């Protein structure tokens, strides 16, 4: 069955549904953790069936192997080491590494601009 491209309104609907699901998972995590794991699974189903990329903020909030919802400090550890962000899922112990070069470059550019602005102000 050819999957092909889904119509536009379907993809919009899928995106909205994924956002709703993750927001709910965020809220529900403190009382009912197993519900938010279930929400992550549902969100993943939608994103795989309709070929929708999850937004950056949500992609980091669930474990890639055991698909559990990760809340920093509760069941996941986030560290920076040699240019990468390490997400460690405490449920299954998986380590996910993500480079953050874009953010570094952005930081350097901001620093240069602030110097330039200061110099112009002094003259």
């Amino acid at each position: 069955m050819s999957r092909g491209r889904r119509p536009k309104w379907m993809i919009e609907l899928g995106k909205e549904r994924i956002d709703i699901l993750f927001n709910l998972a965020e809220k529900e995590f403190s009382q009912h953790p197993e519900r938010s794991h279930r929400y992550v699974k549902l969100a993943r189903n939608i994103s795989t069936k309709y070929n929708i990329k999850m937004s950056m903020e949500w992609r980091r909030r669930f474990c890639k192997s055991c698909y559990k919802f990760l809340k920093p400090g509760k069941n996941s550890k986030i560290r920076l080491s040699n240019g990468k962000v390490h997400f460690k899922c405490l449920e299954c112990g998986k380590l996910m590494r993500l480079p953050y070069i874009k953010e570094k470059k952005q930081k350097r550019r901001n620093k240069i601009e602030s110097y330039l602005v200061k110099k112009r102000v002094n003259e």
Partner: protein
Amino acid sequence: MITPHNIFQHELIGLTVEIVESSHQGLEGIKGKVVDETRNTICLERPDGKEIVVAKSTSLFHFRIPEGLVVEIDGKVLVSRPEDRIKKKFRKI
């Protein structure tokens, strides 16, 4: 945004719902927030925290949308896996 026109394709989890009619008399009149959804059932969390699993195809639901509108949906319309509901085709009345 959830509108009456795409509520049956949209996410049902998180909406408050009331069961109006059902083949199982005990379920009629129950209110609650939808917590979980599978192909044939909806899991409701009652205000007092108890969870009830309700079959979709045998009852009539009143969903309350965030903006306050109430939509009456026949359970038979919702019978499909949550991710398949988006692409399910319906007959325009």
